């Protein structure tokens, strides 16, 4: 059986790639996809813990994270559509009416 650390390191790598994506990209939809990537890294961590601990709790947690991800997708994409209707763009660089 593979050691747990393999899975943990893989999920840490995926989480970091997602974080980099959120910070580097400027298209709101791509940023949202990178956030989904981060959540999936968390899911992998939880399922591998669940396997190695022999407890079902982690998988139930993943279940709820998926539900939340779906709800967030619905609301987030609706926000993007509303923004696009007014602005014809979803670049976050265009999200600049409000300045520092």
């Amino acid at each position: 059986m593979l050691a747990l650390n393999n899975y943990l390191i893989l999920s840490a790598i995926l989480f970091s790639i997602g974080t980099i994506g959120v910070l580097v990209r400027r298209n709101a939809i791509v940023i949202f996809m990178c956030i989904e990537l981060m959540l999936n890294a968390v899911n992998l961590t939880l399922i591998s813990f669940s396997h190695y601990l022999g407890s079902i709790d982690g998988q139930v947690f993943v279940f709820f994270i998926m539900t939340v991800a779906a709800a967030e997708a619905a609301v987030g994409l609706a926000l993007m559509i509303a923004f696009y209707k007014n602005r014809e763009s979803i670049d976050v660089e265009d999200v600049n009416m409000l300045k520092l």
Partner: protein
Amino acid sequence: METIAIPAINLAPIMPEIILSCIAMLLLLVNVFVPSESKGYLGVLSLVGLVATAASVVSGWGQPVAAFGGAVQLDNFAVFFKLIFICSAALAILISDKYVVREEINHGELYPLILFATVGMMLMACGMDLMVIFLGLEVLSISLYVLAGFNRGSLKSNEAGLKYFLLGAFSTGFLLYGMALTYGATGSTKIGNIAGFVATNPQVATNSLFVVGMLLIAVGFSFKTAAAPFHMWTPDVYEGAPTPITAFMSAGPKAAAFAAFIRVMIVAFPTLKHDWTDLLWILAVLTMTVGNIIALSQDNIKRMLAYSSIAHAGYALVGFTACNPEGVAGILFYMLSYTFMNIGAFAVIVLIGKKGEANGNVQDFAGLGQKRPLLAAILCVFLFSLAGIPPTAGFVGKFYLFSAAIKSGYIWLAIIGVLNSAASVYYYLRVMVYMYFKPSEEDFDWVGMTPAIAVCLLLCVATTLVLGVVPGTVLELAQKAVQF
């Protein structure tokens, strides 16, 4: 085929949540049949629902009751916070009545969404399971993303919603990763079980999974409480969101994030207390200083109050750093008084504003003191309280927070806090100077009081002054509420 034995369920501890969600769903149904010019009645109905919920919450005062296998626990701590959330929701509904008509966003869904957000906050305050806290936070956040972008026709509001959504979801990622690692290190998501495991296995404190988990949870909650350096979203979202929603966001959700933060840290990570108080020390100093310094240069009053709300989160973090019963009681008291003084200030901003969020700058308050002396005096009370000048609630709250810090030996932290508080007087006084000593070009004849806003202002002024003059009873209650 094995049958599932459903365990005995005690609904009493989550009765407030059940009542409030039922009222919210009822409102969604009623909304369909209400013509758009009388949507205000939905606000009245939601206030009735909030009062019923408050009655149900108060009955939980006393002995802690746990349910759902330790997933929730209604104790005094939760009761006190839930009352703060109910107050903030009720006050926000009172001031949105006039605003939504003026901005032509008079959709009945506003009220159910505020109530859903309140349900989420209440679950965060009484959740004893990381999953319940996470789901409560998400119910709150999703409602708030929508509320921030509620003014669909306004680009600023869209932008506020989108920014809040992206940064909120990003911070949720950190929070979840922290929760996952904590689960791996302790084998449970229930805070009670985590505490039990840590008590019997003290060596877990050196397990890097546990330490990183704690750090990531702290980062996630710092985003939600808008503590520096995780505060970047606050000013934009506060400025762009509809004003009553900004008032709501600055009071209720901030308190909810503190409730969950305090409970998770104190109950689940007691063995790492030394580490996280050091972390909070730095966060508190940064948050107070950044918030106050940037607020000094703001002209837009909503942005100014956004930075000031960052600074106020910093004061609350001082009490959290102290981590003694006085400090936590101080946070409870401060969050309660902040709810009233801050929403009061926003109520005045709603009154002064014109359609399309015009009139949001400090300069637009020039001459208010001569033309509308009563309104100006009311705003002064709130600003004095925010600045922490006696005899107002803000002074008493800060006094208790800083004295708790001194009691725990954080003398420097208290000194930095007092200095910050002194610096903050400048930007609050600046508004008053404009109100009383600058000539006005406007006659403020569009400022019309409505019964709802009058009730809100009356409640806010009365509470701010009463908590400032005779804080004894409420402080005693706050001290009794410090039990986990």
